[in-house]
């Protein structure tokens, strides 16, 4: 599903260079559950944004579903983000003026799907995160955990192949954090490739594969028994 070879991302800060990602070689198969760990500034978010086609590598190759992403134009990349990739952010990024329903409907709207067709898809997605009864609530009328579940519904309403979550529980208490993780794992169990950035070792150890970054390099890449 994902193949990275000699992938690098360099930032220029004045005269000095920062290698946010440095010679990353990774292969992630469809349906995997990967936790991405490492200290602050080690390049986790940079890698996730790279995988989500929000960023372009400075060096190396990123192949997504057997296509070299280098040759894709912005329109193609936007289409892949829309149809194949879902994002979950630490701070949810729900639009405050829209109801939960409309927030979830946003990717469908961007894809030009008619209002009639959207109805059932959004309902399904909201049902999957257990928030059918909150469809008409605004984000500020929801708890943090509920907001993140709405965001997950939004990330999955297009049935993407890849779900990228950057510290999805960073703003949540441990209980709703656990709920969110369980929800993500359920989605993974039904086939979606899941990559979660986390600082929490507990959470990191739940994933079947753990990748640790340090200074932009992979320092650890292990398959582990899912600790329950």
């Amino acid at each position, binding site marked *: 599903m994902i193949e990275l070879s000699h992938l690098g991302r360099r930032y220029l800060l004045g005269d000095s260079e920062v290698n946010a990602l440095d010679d990353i070689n990774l292969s992630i198969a469809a349906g995997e559950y990967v936790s991405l760990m490492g200290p602050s500034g080690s390049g986790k978010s940079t890698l996730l944004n790279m995988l989500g086609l929000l960023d372009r590598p400075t060096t190396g190759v990123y192949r997504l579903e057997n296509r070299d992403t280098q040759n894709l134009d912005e329109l193609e990349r936007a289409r892949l983000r829309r149809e194949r990739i879902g994002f979950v*952010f630490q701070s949810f*990024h729900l639009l405050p003026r829209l109801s939960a329903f409309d927030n979830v409907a*946003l990717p469908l*709207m961007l894809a030009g799907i008619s209002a009639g067709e959207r109805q059932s898809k959004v309902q399904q997605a909201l049902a999957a995160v257990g928030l059918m009864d909150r469809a008409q609530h605004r984000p500020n009328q929801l708890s943090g955990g509920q907001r993140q579940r709405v965001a997950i519904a939004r990330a999955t309403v297009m049935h993407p192949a890849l779900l990228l979550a950057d510290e999805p529980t960073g703003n949540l208490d441990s209980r709703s954090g656990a709920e969110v993780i369980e929800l993500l794992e359920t989605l993974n169990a039904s086939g979606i490739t899941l990559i979660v950035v986390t600082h929490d070792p507990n959470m990191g150890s739940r994933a079947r594969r753990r990748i640790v970054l340090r200074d932009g390099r992979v320092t650890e890449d292990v398959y582990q028994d899912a600790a329950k």
Partner: protein
Amino acid sequence: MRIADLTRFTLNSLLAERQRSALTMLAIAIGIAAVVLLTGLGSGLQRYLVSQFTQFGTHLIAITPGKANTTGFSISAIDTQRPLTLPDAQSLLDIPGIEAMTPVVSGQLSAEFAGKSRRTLAFGIGPQAPTVWGMPLARGQFLPADDLIAPRPVVLLGNTLARSLFDNVNPLGEKMRIGGMSFRVIGVLEAKGQMLGFDIDDAAYIPAALSLQLFNREGLMEIDVLYNENETSSSVVKRLSRRMIERHGAEDFTVQSQDQMLASLGKILDVLTFAVGALGGIALLTGGVGILTLMSIAVAERRGEIGLLTALGAPPNFVLQLFLGEAVILGALGGLLGVGIGLAGLGLLHLAIPALPFAPRMDYLLIAEALALLIGLVAGVWPAMKAARLDPIEALREE
């Protein structure tokens, strides 16, 4: 995204900041209202003046002393110019195409009858004045076709003057004094109404020669000529000029036909209307700056949304279109609001001053609305470009 969805999404984001959006729209609306109001006033004034000038007929040519400059207004070159005289006027009558002619002198004089006195407008005219100006007679008869130079002292009374000075007495045949000279009343005119705010019914019409004496003037103020409707004004103007140059030896007078005058009046008023509209346009500029400011703030506040839309797979131009659309809608709605306010203002003015036909001009309404749209578009370009150029990763970064 579908157009309907995009529209809903855009309106939704404007509604989310309804107070701010309303204020910005108001700024545009005030500019547009000013344009609509001012141009409405201008064109209303224009219609009013045209109707005033054409109420005496349209096949008229006026000769005035002094050479006119290009704008159509005469500059008196007092030393070189000979006065327009009654013999000058008389001489015009045998020119082909001329139907009738009247000399014109006017001023204020006191009119007295039976111990009552009243200051009134006095017109010195010729016997053909009723033909030239189309003045209908209520009673009696017009000035007799006397010798222009040595006429009998008779007077025609305007309706208002006759009523106020004579009450219930039948003025016909009565003797009265005008400017200290004795006149016999021979006719009363039908009420005609106002002309540029003057009550032309509150006037006395006496032979021009006598009015020259009373006003102590050497020359006429004007000679009005009615020409045959089968003639063109320019050919008659040429003939009149030739005759006058023959008599005066130089072109020390101005011949202007009614249609020329209306044309130059129209030109002046067009310029005026445009200038006044441009003034409103300056107010519009303020509204444009308002939109620019609002949209810049919106872009800064909605960084997260911009990043999110990109992450969700919005096509490359989507963010640009979104913010541009919001700016254009602000402009368009503000414009509509302004047109409404402007029309309401014109309506109120019309109620306040019914005599002036204040009229909105459709073309100016359309131009104003198009302008509002354009201002929205122009003011939106910069903020929208800023939004579109935003790096999504930067925009999504958690604070």
